């Protein structure tokens, strides 16, 4: 866990919210993108 900046595990809801957003019309100019929901692990 030390490698995770937010120092906690993510909730599945947090991932699901991004999946729903990327699948929806408000992300209409996002394509081919790799999005991270990692509590800062790759920052």
């Amino acid at each position, binding site marked *: 866990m030390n490698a995770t900046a937010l120092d906690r595990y993510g909730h599945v809801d*947090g991932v699901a919210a991004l999946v729903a957003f990327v699948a929806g019309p*408000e992300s209409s*100019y996002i394509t081919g993108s790799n999005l991270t929901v990692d509590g800062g692990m*790759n920052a």
Partner: protein
Amino acid sequence: MSSPVVLITGALTGIGRAAAVIFAQEGAHVVVSGRRDKEGQELAAELQALGAEAIFVRTDVRNEDDVRNLVDQTVKRFGRLDIAVNNAGTEGVPGLVTDQTAESYAATFDSNVLGVLLSMKHELRAMLPQGSGSIVNVSSAYGSVGAAGASVYVASKHAVEGLTKSAALEVAGTGVRVNVVAPGTTDTGMLTRFTNTDGNKTALVSTVPVKRLAAPEEIAHVIAFVASANASYMTGASIPVDGGMIAD
């Protein structure tokens, strides 16, 4: 949270303006900032007509006193700062590396890099004692790839990516998140100035996989998502909104 308090720099045009309208429509209290009083007051009135509580605070993000005042006025009016969108920026003076000067460098970096740095500094001054807050910086697809003829702009946007990651790590665990949205070719005045001619703009769009410009709202919706509690495990992240530009 009833009505989040949202601060936006560079709010008078383009992506910043679109974000201000979306946050207002979502019921936020909105503080818009920019350098032009008349346009700022008109935007605040437009947001109020949408039902939002909104104020304009004249701000040049290159000036620390202005930025300090922007945050102070926000907290004075609304009692806190929940979301900050650091969107102010300039295309600078595009040109070859061999044509650049100390002045052209400073003109771009002062707005795009120093502006974001000072903005985060003072926003965090309000957010850290709250134990909550969400900062969304705005970089560019040119924050992760190079572009011939745009070196200084490209470098400044790479810097915004680095500032974002570092700030996110510094405040991780405090309740404050810091992320960056990286727009591609967006239909704004900046793109028109950046490309200079219709032919250049058409040529640039032809290189984008989706073969069209983004509407400013298409960037602003992503900013609003990343700022929201729905993105509560996202920090230090860079979100490309570029029609496939950097996937290519």
